[in-house]
């Protein structure tokens, strides 16, 4: 397994953060501070650096500090002993990512370069919310396994929108409906195969991670639930059958856009039965499993960003999580309001670095 770590990080014009320059350790990096000081902003900056996106918002301009024109995050990233310089800059209408000063082929290509996994209070919707976010997890994993997935995802989405538009504007007897459905079947089948393979790897890893960090006596089962029938012919037949209905409902009834990764706690659906604490444990298990699966696919352990875990989990589960992470040997950046709960120094001597975050300033503690 290769070692992947951010060695140093600078940020300018990013939310409330003062211009910063910090060196990170290869193991645990603990950022302590009261609420509203900028801890989450720091993790968001790292996430932006790695993916050119935010885990909080789709409107990236929010990331630019008030009164500033642009935000820029830059870092030295070391993978397998080789150092590279990465940067992401944002300004109105522009998002520029660079690796060693060069433009990546695409932002998607950029995002798989430095795998990160983020756990934050908002990610609980992965367990409580609709299938859309779980599909994204599956696609992300599929993408690490095989970069060509992106083509299938995009082509399927466009064919789906096109068929819907034909249905709504030209009706179910339009001559080209068959053609769009042919394309839906072709790309949908490819997408389904990718997701099935991703789920087959992810599922057992989630179940194992939940055993390690979840509450005693509860068991999590994970399975891929396709949003349409198996096989080309059955899928095509279902599309043809549902034309009138899809036209009326204004969306297609069957297909991979309705896939889900079903989560069951002691044989009952997590949605509805789980407590807040259980949902968080489920999401953490998903993230830990994602780390393991991506690590296997890419031979490199993703960087883990943990936002405010101590408020999310109780003492016992925080300990279990940190134990599970110590065995995984990747770089971790975590924030907390209560650094005294983070007793990880014992577990991995010398691999912990402490920082204090106060009013947007970050200092070594």
């Amino acid at each position, binding site marked *: 397994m290769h070692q992947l770590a951010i060695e140093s990080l600078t940020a300018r014009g990013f939310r409330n953060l003062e211009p910063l320059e910090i060196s990170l350790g290869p193991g645990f990096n603990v950022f302590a501070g009261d609420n509203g000081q900028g801890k989450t902003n720091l993790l968001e900056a790292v996430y932006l650096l790695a993916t050119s996106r935010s885990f909080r918002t789709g409107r990236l301009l929010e990331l630019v500090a008030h009164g500033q024109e642009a935000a820029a995050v830059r870092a030295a990233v070391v993978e397998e002993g080789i150092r590279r310089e990465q940067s992401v800059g944002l300004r109105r209408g522009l998002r520029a990512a660079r690796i060693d000063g060069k433009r990546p082929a695409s932002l998607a290509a950029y995002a798989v370069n430095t795998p990160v996994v983020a756990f934050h209070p908002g990610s609980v919707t992965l367990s409580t919310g609709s299938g859309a976010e779980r599909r994204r997890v599956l696609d992300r994993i599929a993408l690490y396994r095989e970069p060509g997935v992106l083509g299938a995802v995009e082509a399927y989405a466009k064919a789906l929108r*096109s068929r819907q538009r034909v249905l709504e504007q*030209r009706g179910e007897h339009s001559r080209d409906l068959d*053609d769009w459905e042919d394309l839906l079947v072709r790309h949908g089948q490819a997408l389904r195969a990718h997701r099935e393979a991703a789920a087959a790897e992810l599922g057992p890893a989630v179940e194992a991670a939940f055993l390690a960090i979840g509450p005693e006596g509860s068991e999590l089962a994970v399975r891929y639930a396709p949003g349409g029938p198996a096989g080309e012919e059955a899928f095509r037949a279902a599309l043809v059958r549902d034309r009138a209905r899809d036209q009326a409902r204004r969306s297609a009834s069957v297909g991979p856009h309705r896939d889900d990764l079903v989560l069951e706690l002691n044989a009952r659906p997590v949605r509805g039965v789980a407590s807040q604490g259980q949902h968080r444990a489920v999401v953490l298990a998903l993230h830990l499993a994602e780390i393991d699966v991506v690590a296997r696919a890419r031979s490199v352990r993703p960087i883990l960003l943990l936002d405010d875990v101590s408020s999310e989990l109780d003492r016992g589960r925080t300990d279990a999580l940190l134990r599970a992470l110590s065995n995984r040997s990747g770089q971790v950046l975590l924030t907390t309001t209560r650094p005294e709960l983070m007793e990880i120094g014992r577990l991995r001597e010398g691999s912990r670095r402490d920082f204090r975050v106060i009013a947007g300033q970050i200092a070594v503690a």
Partner: protein
Amino acid sequence: MSPKVRRLVKLLARLPGVGEKTAQRYVLWLLTSEESLSRELGDELSRLRDELGPCERCGNVGEIHEGRALCDVCTDGKRDAKLLCVVARVHDLMAIERAGAMRGRYFVLGKLLSPLEGIGPEDLPLDRLVARIREDGVTEVIVATPPSVDGEATALLLKRELGPLGVAVSRIASGVPHGGDLEFADPITMGRALAGRQRL
């Protein structure tokens, strides 16, 4: 800026890939460099639409004689009239011609199916295509629409619409470029190349 200059800048800036600044550079260049350049250009431009137009048979750029436009591919007697290549745009036709490997003739659709842009089958010149196939006794149609989602849908539509005519319909292959190292192929192209592999 003189209103005349401003007007010319505005006109030039309507060309694809030309912004106001570039347009202004062009105007100043035309004003200050050799006089013959701007005069010749002006002459050519003013005659352009009288002398050239879309070929009435295929849609390629053709010369107008006695009110009819025909392109040099359609008037080239050495071309195989039974082989017809369907492309989306004149640019694509020119790219295929540059390769010099096409011995048949062309048909330019002008657009692709694209419900998201409001383009349906009725907006494509399918009737003209069918008439052309019948007139020339075409036996094979090569569909060379781009490998995008809209291009694929258009190819499928053509296959379905032309099938009953009894012509062979084929689709150009998609894959890695010649002479390039495989390592530079993007993942989607590589995936297509693998999916479309041929038995040795």
